[in-house]
């Protein structure tokens, strides 16, 4: 029996409870305020320290940032805290120390919903689509905070990912891995975000689909949306990166331009397989 009175005892009986799709985030509470804080990159999680709920710190003084017109890539071994860092930037967990700034504003106290409203879009690593809803409904939910006409944006997404238009009335959960990732990215683009955060957008897809997804991501970046991205395929990702971060155990191990990191013998040896 665990010491946490709200933990997992007796939860296997699905006729009593429905844990599927239950939230795991301990997001920043609603009602927080943002305030001006000039200077710095467009989006930065600065000196972030924190973890999940009351658990141990996963991030230690970690900084990740992306500036206008850039693609920034985060690489690192499994369990390094890359996803945790992304969630922290999005307010999906509480920071014990550090700040998140967006476009000259300190948004550390803002809830995830408010960050969406400020123009941030996020594709998490896992469970990044509404599986029981159709492709079109997924896109509609992406645009949930918008009150204007979304048909133009939806048409743009269908231009970017033509297969989605074909499948728009199909449940997203029935699609292939690559198509699901396209739905996930499409959903995040529906708010017309000012910055896009992608957590392993090419995970679990075939190499051909991966190249295709990378092309699409570069296409999005060319439209002027800065992209902060976690990638398993470090070499390929760093090649297209303006800025690269190597995280190890929740800390910044190496930081530099994509080319610098690719050229760094230490980084090559430890993370790029020589």
């Amino acid at each position: 029996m665990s010491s946490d009175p709200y933990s997992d005892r007796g939860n296997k009986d699905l006729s009593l409870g429905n844990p599927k799709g239950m939230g795991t985030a301990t997001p920043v509470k609603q009602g927080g305020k943002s305030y001006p804080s000039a200077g710095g990159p467009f989006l930065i999680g600065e000196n972030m320290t924190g973890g999940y709920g009351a658990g141990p710190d996963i991030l230690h003084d970690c900084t990740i940032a992306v500036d206008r017109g850039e693609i920034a890539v985060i690489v690192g071994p499994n369990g390094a805290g890359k996803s945790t860092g992304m969630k922290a930037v999005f307010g999906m967990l509480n920071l014990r120390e550090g700040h998140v700034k967006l476009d000259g504003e300190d948004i550390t106290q803002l809830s995830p919903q408010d960050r969406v409203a400020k123009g941030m879009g996020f594709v998490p690593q896992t469970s990044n689509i509404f599986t029981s809803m159709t492709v079109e409904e997924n896109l509609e939910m992406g645009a949930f905070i918008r009150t204007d006409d979304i048909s133009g944006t939806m048409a743009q997404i269908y231009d970017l990912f033509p297969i989605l238009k074909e499948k728009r009335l199909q449940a997203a959960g029935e699609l292939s891995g690559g198509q699901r990732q396209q739905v996930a990215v499409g959903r995040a683009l529906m708010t017309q975000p000012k910055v896009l955060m992608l957590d392993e957008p090419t995970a679990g897809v075939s190499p051909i689909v991966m190249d295709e997804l990378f092309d699409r991501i570069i296409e999005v970046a060319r439209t002027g949306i800065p992209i902060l991205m976690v990638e398993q395929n470090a070499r390929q990702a760093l090649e297209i990166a303006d800025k690269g971060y190597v995280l190890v155990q929740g800390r910044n191990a190496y930081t530099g331009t994509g080319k610098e990191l690719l050229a760094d013998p230490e980084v090559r040896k430890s993370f790029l397989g020589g």
Partner: protein
Amino acid sequence: MRVRATLYSPDELIYDKDFELDLLNAIVALSNFVIIPAMSYGAQLALGALGVTLIYGILRFSNFAHGDTMAFGAMVTVLVTWLFQSWGISLGPLPTALLALPFGILGCMALLLATDRVVYRFYRAQKAKPVIFVIVSLGVTFILNGLVRFIIGPDDQRFLDGERFIISARTFKEITGLREGLAFKTTQGITILTAVIVVALLFWFLNRTRTGKSMRAYSDNEDLALLSGINPERVVRVTWLIVAGLATIAGVLYGLDKSFKPFTYFQLLLPIFASAIVGGLGNPLGAIAGGFVIAFSEVTVTYAWKKVVTYVVPEDMAPDTLVQLLSTDYKLAVSFVILLIVLLVKPTGLFAGKAV
């Protein structure tokens, strides 16, 4: 059979259509005692099960307080009905309770929002697991149980007025000349009609409106809903409001059809949960189908088939027992057995809900 024919009308002796007539009588008796009552009971169960299934799907727990929520909503409706009756307000042939229903729903909404605020919200903030919510809802059940009895008392309360029948058995017999009468009560008509309207509205809401879709999104994936800018607390609130509506309507329809007694609502919990689980927990379509499956099973198993059988089989085979599988006292056992069978054989329910 010819002998029996003399009982109703001497001149019917002339025609040799006894068997057809008997068959017709059998059908009428079947409709009167089985089909119509089961339809309206099924509609009441379906509405109750829809509330349970919505909470299961969106708030992620089996709400044991649902029966007593129905009782509370119905109680407020009963009280307002009495008030209207004392003022001399009525709806003519329709029960005054229909006029009081919106007030009952409002009262129930206030109750559920208050319970959520005082009780469930705390556990949501702790990210408590569903089983904790279930036990919490059991506590809420007891409190509501006491509250309702404290306010209105534990006894049967009558609040039905207006025309009792759309077609009474006697009128039916006079019109058709058949031996069996077919009674169609006003409350049964209202129940079925209301259920159809409510279900259509609910499905339209869940599948077509932005708020409805955001509720489905939250049910599917809470974290992603948060990332999309959907406010989880708003989803929870809207869910409670809808559930209050469904519970009150189900409770009032049941009360009109039978009578209002707080304890029967607690007992209704079993058939309601059986309906929701048989249909597949978390699946609204399943809840409706489940409601009718349970209602028809309960009514057919506890109905004394003697009359219908006597009409259909040849005279010498007519049964001399009641041909009743189970006494009505055991009607709850039917839900229980069906529930067990479904959980053993097809735990996801007929329509593949979320339970595995």
